[in-house]
């Protein structure tokens, strides 16, 4: 006898509203369904009603955590439509800010993962170090979160020479603490007890369900758009694609933590090799009719923008495919067979970002195989 355990739209394990329907048999999960759309804001429609310039700031607000990646992808797509190439220096600045963003996103992940398993000290320490990145970003771009640095044809703000030593010093601090966290995450007994062999995504399933980003890399799938399809300055920058084999929550965490080290390397290299010159080329806003697809590696995985222009200064259609959306398909294979107590940490292993994701609503088409237990009934059942 299975019954349905509703998780969400409001639930302490979720930081954003989303609804998950877990079918459980006792403590064991036998099936999971996702109902998307609780954070639907109509952004794609809104994107096709503003001009290309104004859209930058709208696409920045699709996701707060990975806003630079969103604007970079958007701007690269529009630059392709316009047929211009941003100056070299602009590409490097974009890479620097994007990597700082990846560092802060992964540290945020570490903090909340620690919170989900009740390790509040690690949570606080990870977020303390995240503050250093935020300060660097504030210094470079003028705001802790929304950098508003990208623009069509380049960047709006230069990385000043007097900032470089501060950035390097900040990176040093981050490198030290990241190494400490890697050591801690892989050796603390209680963390291992809560994270190993949980929510395992096998390599086969990761490929079958087209998992992206750290989730796929934790399952031994070597996929990283920065390396597979280099964009911007990534051609010239050298870095390793981090992979782990196990595919459990621990591996997912390890991939993210080791990626922080790679990001630190990238930022250092970019700061050193950054060419001089202009940071911006002026681009007219009238785009010839065309269409384009642009993809980048966001902290959570592959981010894809599709833009169709029609000769005016407004795009006809913008489609955004965020990494979390790409990862939902593999959820089932991670949850099924696990227990209810594992839901929060396994869920967080995906690093879901529902704000990013909810621009479409999927309608569940499966018909009554199981009975839905209403909330009242659940209450009477007392479990």
């Amino acid at each position, binding site marked *: 006898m299975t019954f349905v355990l509703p998780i969400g739209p409001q639930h*302490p*394990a979720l930081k954003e509203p989303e609804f998950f329907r877990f079918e459980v048999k006792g403590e064991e999960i036998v099936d999971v369904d996702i109902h998307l759309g609780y954070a639907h804001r109509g952004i794609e429609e809104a994107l096709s009603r503003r001009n290309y310039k104004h859209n930058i700031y709208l696409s920045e607000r699709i996701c707060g955590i990975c806003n630079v990646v969103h604007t970079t992808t958007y701007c690269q797509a529009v630059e392709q439509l316009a047929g211009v190439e941003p100056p070299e220096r602009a590409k490097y600045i974009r890479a620097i800010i994007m990597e700082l963003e990846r560092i802060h996103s992964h540290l945020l992940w570490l903090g909340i993962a*620690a*919170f*989900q*398993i*009740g*390790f*509040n*000290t*690690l949570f*606080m*320490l990870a977020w*303390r170090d995240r503050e250093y990145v935020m300060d660097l970003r504030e210094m470079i771009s003028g705001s802790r979160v929304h950098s508003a640095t990208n623009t069509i044809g380049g960047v709006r703000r230069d990385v000043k020479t007097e900032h470089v030593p501060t950035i390097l010093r900040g990176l040093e601090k981050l490198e030290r603490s990241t190494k400490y966290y890697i050591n801690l995450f892989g050796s*603390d007994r*209680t*963390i291992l*007890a*809560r994270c190993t062999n949980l929510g395992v995504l096998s390599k086969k399933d990761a490929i079958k369900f087209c998992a992206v980003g750290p989730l796929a890399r934790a399952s031994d799938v070597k996929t990283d758009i920065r390396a597979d399809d280099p964009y911007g300055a990534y051609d010239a920058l050298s870095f390793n694609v981090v992979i782990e084999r196990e595919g459990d929550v621990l591996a997912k965490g390890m991939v993210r933590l080791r990626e922080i080290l790679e990001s630190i390397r990238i930022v250092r290299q970019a700061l050193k090799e950054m060419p001089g010159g202009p940071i911006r080329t002026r681009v007219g806003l009238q785009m010839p009719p065309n269409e384009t697809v642009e993809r980048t590696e966001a902290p959570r995985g592959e981010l894809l923008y599709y833009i169709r222009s029609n000769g005016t200064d407004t795009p006809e259609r913008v489609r955004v495919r965020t990494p979390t959306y790409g990862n939902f398909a593999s959820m089932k294979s991670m949850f099924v067979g696990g227990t209810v*107590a*594992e*839901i*929060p940490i396994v869920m967080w292993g995906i690093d879901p970002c529902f704000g990013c994701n909810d621009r479409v609503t999927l309608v569940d088409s499966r018909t009554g195989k199981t009975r839905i237990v209403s909330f009242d009934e*659940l*209450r009477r059942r*007392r*479990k």
Partner: protein
Amino acid sequence: MMEVVDFVINSLVFPGLLFVSLVGLLYVGIDRKVTGHMQHRIGPPIWQEYLDMGKLLSKEDITPSAAQSFVFNIVPLVSLGAIVAVMLFLPVTSAQPALISVADLIVIIYLLNIPAICVMLGGYSSGSPFGASGAGRYVVQLLSYEFVFILAIIAVVARVGSLSLGTVVVYQAQQGWLVLDWRLLPAAIAALIAAQGKLLRVPFDIPEAESEIVHGALTEYSGPKLAIWRLAYDIETIVVAGLLVALFFGGPTTYVIGGTQIPGVVDFLIKTLAIVLLTTTLRNIMARLRIDQALKFYWSFAALLAIISLVLVLAVP
């Protein structure tokens, strides 16, 4: 007549309700402050717990209609009463507790379980899935730590040869602290681990894991009732610490320093604070276990420690 007055003063003022509330709230405040510093932040001021208590007491009490029942309303008070009663059995100023009975250790073990049972009742009667699953987890947790706790106490009892806490303290005054006795060291560690579970501290805060089940059994409580729960919990902290002090750390001792006599209560306060700080450290260096892992840990590792101790006490004279 005098006895009645004595009893009332004992239970309401010292070492009863007033004294333990003030000390308990302060200790949890210190715990929170130290936690803050351990996590490299400032943390709340140490009197924060008093402010929180005042805030909760002045707030509106919202009880969901599904939870409106006699049990739901009465359990906070029962639990507070039980835990204050334990305080009367603890030696606070001298080896003699405020209330004397022949086998007070058994009474204490019983009374210490009442708050736990109250939490479960409150959770089950709250009509919320979080409350119910918190209570369910609490049952499992109780089954795990209680066995270890009782075994550790039995080891002490077997060594001292008396079921009275006063005698245990007197024994330690003559023979030295029991924790320094190599036969009882494993039992002391086991008792500390059990206390960590009793006080719902990481890694055993499973019944109220906020990232999984909100606030567990107490999810639906609010306002004054929640304040009473908090008070009971804070008092429980000092009571459990006090019990450990009496069992293993020599209990309250009076010293004479420079001609003035330091009353035993000072010693009691210092020792309990040390135990509270020890649990604070423990809770800040670990992640929460899953309930099945906690059960396994208690029944294998912690129980083994206690049993070793018991066997040693019985076998090695």
